[in-house]
């Protein structure tokens, strides 16, 4: 589903991402972790086609990713790290736009809208301008926009920041069911407990270089800490404890 080979990005004299290789199969929830400035956002932007790699390649759903492949892009979606919304729109107008560009049928759109508004407690709040929403409400809106058309792959960059506990729990539950149904999730987060709880596999990147990857058990074994939390494992593998 997602394949990166020798993925490299150099800005001037700085190598932000260095020869990254990984593969995420169908139906997997893949957590991509790293400290601040380690190259996570640069990698996601290259995977989404928003940034041209200096070297290497990205394949999404078996195709080389490019910005002008709208068919391919209609099968993926993205939740950015800051929940910005295009234009000066109300929540409903934003979701109408998303439904239109992803070619959703009216009936399907209404059904999904009702389901997700319930899931994230946003009923009755769609008809005010998004600029008046709280951070958490914006985050919910962007998540709804990314999930309601059931993409094959969803890229989530810090999706739980600002979410209330109930929505947080609902999102985790939904993502588990979503991957169980054969969809793929690519998640980056600093909330290591979230990755520990829901990720099938984890890749740790440090200073642009892939450090370790595998299941939590495999990473614990590499770190030599069989009962440790992901936080301990992460710090051991990135900072040497």
């Amino acid at each position, binding site marked *: 589903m997602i394949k990166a080979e020798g993925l490299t990005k150099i800005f001037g004299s700085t190598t932000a991402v260095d020869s990254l290789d990984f593969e995420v199969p169908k139906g997997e929830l893949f957590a991509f972790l790293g400290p601040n400035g380690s190259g996570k956002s640069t990698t996601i932007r290259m995977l989404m*086609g928003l940034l041209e790699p200096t070297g290497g390649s990205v394949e999404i759903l078996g195709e080389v990713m490019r910005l*002008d492949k709208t068919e391919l*892009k209609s099968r993926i979606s993205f939740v950015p790290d800051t929940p910005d919304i295009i*234009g000066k729109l109300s929540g409903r107008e934003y979701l109408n736009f998303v439904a239109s560009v992803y070619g959703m049928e009216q009936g399907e759109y209404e059904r999904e809208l009702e389901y997700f508004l319930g899931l994230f407690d946003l009923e009755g709040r769609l008809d005010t301008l998004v*600029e008046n929403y709280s951070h958490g409400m914006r985050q919910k809106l962007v998540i709804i926009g990314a999930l309601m058309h059931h993409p094959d792959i969803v890229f989530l960059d810090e999706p739980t920041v600002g979410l209330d506990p109930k929505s947080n729990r609902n999102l985790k539950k939904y993502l588990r069911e979503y991957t169980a149904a054969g969809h793929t999730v690519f998640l980056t987060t600093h909330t290591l407990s979230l990755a520990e709880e829901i990720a099938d596999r984890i890749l740790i990147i440090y200073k642009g270089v892939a450090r370790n990857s595998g299941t939590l058990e495999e990473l614990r074994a590499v770190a030599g800490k069989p009962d440790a939390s992901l936080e301990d494992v992460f710090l051991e593998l990135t900072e040497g404890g």
Partner: protein
Amino acid sequence: MIRSILRVEIRSMINYMKVLSDSKKVIYGLLAAVIALFILPSALSVLSIIILGAGEESLGGFMLLLSLAAVLILTLLAVNSIIKEMFMDRNIQLYLTFPVSPAALFAAKFIRQWLINTAFIMGALGIITGVLFSMREGQWLLTVTHIAYFLFLSIVSMSLAYGLVFAVTKVLPANKVSEVLSFLGGISFVLVYGVLLIGGSSVQDISGILPDASFLYSGFLYNFSPAGGLAGTVVSAALAAVLVLLLRSFVVHAFKSGWVGEQSVKRRHMDASSDALSPVRTLVQKDMRMTLRDFREWTVLLPQYLLPGIMIFILYTNPATAIEASGNIHDSRMIAVSVSGTVVISLFAGAYNTARDAAHFEFLKIMPLKAADLVKAKYLFNIMTIPPVYLLAGIVAWMILPVSMAALLYSSLFIILVSLAVIPAGMFAGSMQPVVSRKNPAKRLDTATNVILSIIMGVLLIAAGLISVLFARDGGLNHLLIAVVLSVLAVSTGVSMLFLRAVRKRYEKGFNIIYKD
């Protein structure tokens, strides 16, 4: 896809209009009235005089001059909105995460920007010149050819603006480019003023030194011939199409290579030693660095700093005022400009520099800083940045203009005393209801304060002439009156400390901040 994006953009604009505050509606209404009642009639009369009265030999030069001026002004006006939409907002990046092709996104954005930024104004200009040339020659098809030509120029303006923004952004960080280009866009009004003020009187001279452009326009825009009109229209349309296609491939390449939105990758190393200073010194240093490192700060205040220059320009070059310019009237004018210019910049800079604290007010409040130190530091910063600039400008003016040493000394005294007396009033205005806008950090003052300061500025512009008359006597300066006014100002400097006390209270209680976007 283009339609979906355009629909969202239009919806967005409608929403923007709907939620406009009443005060903003009034401001826009006033602005529309000023354009309809002053700028449009001025433009119409200047164009009518030239087009209907000029000899045929100067028409080519005039059209070339008009085209260059219109393209230059609209290009500068367009760069600001292009850089904001393409680089500063995250809109482009967000759109591109959807199943939207870069080409469709460019098309939608370009159509909207073209219609709003250039096509509307160029179209109107085309209609005006077309009708005037039609009246001159009795050939109404000239209206059509003029509209076609000016719409072509609107595409040229957009292409230049896009090219300028994208090319410069390739080598400089977008936020820095935004600061510089916004400034250029901001001062482009001076060009409009220049065209309107000196256009009518000097156009003949200027067009005389321009290359003969009759081979471009004769038959197409005047001396109409069917073949010339058709050829000109077709060439205009074809060139416009080629420009749009070139621009499309250029911008789409920028989208695909991640060039747009590629920011914060160029990091400049800042040398600074780890020194702990006194609160006042460190606050002054904070303001100084914020000003020197952000060109947008200059953008906001430079027009006010330049105002005395414009006033001098009007007083010394306008034929209407130049006639009476004899003897020592120059001296009193120099003093008048110093007084009114210092009042304007002291008010604006005092207000803007104080309102800047709103953006990090909570940070300042949680620090163990006394309100008195904050006010003292702000006052010092304003004193360090306002009078020295004007004193220097005064010396330059004295070197260029026929002004006596006495006038320079009086002007310097006025600059110092007026700024000391008025800066506190500006600080008071800036602390009244400051605005914090993430998208437009230069917007710092609420509409009411802006209106009040603008009215004061307008009144002072008019009063400058009156002040110069008051200070002149018997071919010299009225030293007694000047001494009296200087004494009053010295007393006012002390009285203005009351404003500082009020500002200190606001710092203590907390600013009444308006948060935008």
